[in-house]
């Protein structure tokens, strides 16, 4: 809150916030400088050169190459500084740290469904520990949404049919507004919530509090059994399908000759549309699970697969 009783500037609650604000103030400074310069020049010229008699005829001045070069090169240099600085910040926000705590988010009209790895789920709220990088893996069940936390200076679109990520590290405990910021239909402005940042110890107790829940990985394992995945994808590579242990991050060779890195999008696609990418050496007999599993379920299975360690000698061959 400013002294006026309403805020004029958002609070800084993440590690990125001060860095973004720094760049913002640089841009602001440059802008104020040039806007003021033009304003002063216009006013000064308007006053000094105002028409005093009706038959005044100024001397024609057609231009000055030196000035043209000056006011091309100076703005260009300044904008290049802005570009480089902004690109470096962008790069950092784009790639989450490898040790980030992963939390899954499913957006739908018009709410945020959050699932912690340990099992707790939330609606329109996200509890997180301070002092630790948090990575959100997000998808939408319907239209494009956007996960925006002003106090952290982060946002990213949340897409149907794909996963997108964003990461942040909260620096102080508090409740911070969460907004959907990609227009998504009637209740777009109602799709808001809070990020609740807690000290690590408090967060742990919050996590283990509440009703007894199974972790995402366990829920995923249950689904893996229930939907029959286990009948083909045995852990020791003896089944009709490849073993999925240690799959995330591995390079997979496909029947078409191409290779892909198995990420969350690859797993999701393989479940919903298995014929899109057939692993080399395996028959195309995996059933289609579209309509039989929800986005939450897919995220649970992914969590389960991440928990599997690769068995000795269980390599995907051929």
């Amino acid at each position: 809150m400013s002294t006026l009783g309403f805020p004029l500037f958002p609070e800084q609650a993440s590690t990125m916030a001060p860095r973004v604000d720094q760049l913002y103030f640089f841009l602001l400074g440059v802008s104020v400088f040039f806007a003021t310069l033009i304003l002063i020049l216009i006013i000064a010229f308007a006053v000094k050169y105002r028409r005093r008699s009706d038959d005044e005829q100024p001397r024609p001045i057609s231009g000055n190459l030196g000035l043209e070069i000056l006011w091309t090169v100076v703005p260009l240099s300044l904008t290049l500084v802005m570009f480089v600085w902004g690109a470096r910040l962008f790069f950092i926000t784009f790639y989450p740290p490898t040790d980030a705590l992963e939390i899954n988010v499913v957006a739908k009209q018009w709410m945020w469904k959050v699932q912690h790895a340990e099992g707790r789920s939330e609606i329109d709220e996200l509890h997180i520990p301070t002092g630790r990088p948090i990575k959100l893996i997000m998808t939408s069940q319907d239209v494009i949404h956007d996960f925006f936390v002003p106090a952290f200076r982060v946002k990213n679109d949340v897409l149907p049919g794909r996963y997108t990520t964003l990461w942040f590290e909260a620096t102080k405990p508090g409740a911070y507004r969460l907004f959907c910021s990609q227009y998504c239909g009637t209740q777009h402005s109602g799709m808001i919530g809070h990020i609740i940042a807690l000290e690590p110890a408090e967060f742990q107790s919050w996590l283990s509090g509440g009703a007894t829940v199974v972790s995402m990985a366990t829920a995923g394992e249950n689904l893996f059994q229930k939907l029959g995945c286990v009948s083909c994808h045995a852990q020791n590579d003896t089944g009709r399908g490849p073993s999925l242990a240690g799959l995330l991050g591995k390079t997979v060779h496909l029947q078409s000759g191409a290779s892909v890195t198995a990420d969350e999008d690859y797993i999701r696609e393989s479940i919903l549309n298995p014929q899109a990418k057939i692993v080399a050496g395996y028959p195309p007999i995996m059933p289609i699970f579209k309509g039989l599993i929800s986005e939450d379920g897919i995220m649970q299975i992914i969590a389960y697969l991440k928990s599997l360690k690769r068995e000795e000698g269980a390599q995907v061959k051929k």
Partner: protein
Amino acid sequence: MSDSSIVHAHQFDDAEQQHEASWLGMWVFLATEVMFFGGMFLGYTIYRSTYPEAFADASNHLDIWLGTINTAVLIGSSFTMALAVRSAQLGARKPLVRFLILTLVLGALFLGIKFTEYYAKIEEHLVPGSNFSYAGPLGRAAQIFFSFYFAMTGMHALHMIIGLALLTALIVKAGRGRFSSVYNTPVELVGLYWHFVDIVWIFLFPLLYLVGRHLQ
């Protein structure tokens, strides 16, 4: 270089200026058409590189014989159109009318074959929408192929129909002796338009009909 005896529209200084303006106008218009079709070509390219097998599979459902015949028909019509333009430039009224009519007939033949193909696709349930049905796991991406097939050939057919209307107008005017070796700009410009529509088909044919085909 201006012939003041040639009638020209009042906003122009002379016939030469009118001709230059008309010619530039048609080329600018064709540039807009390139951008218009270009959007669809871009979309097609992106999805083909994403779903190469589905696109090849779907492409094989198209009738390659009808497509080839149509390509020959359209190239033939461009030839007759070029001959029509030449006749106009030579001031040869009867050949001009004949070649325009030939072009019209070939264009109509193209459309007739095209609509035969469309009808077959309707029967085979290959029109995207609620009636679409495609055996096998590639069906999802195949529907995207057919979306582009109908959108692109449909847009092309629409341009052909407009071309036929233009040709009809030309035939009427040429029959009345409106064109001569001194004034034949409309024939020239419709010729440009017709050749453009032909070129679009020359790109469409291999992209849609010849995906993953091999000479057996």
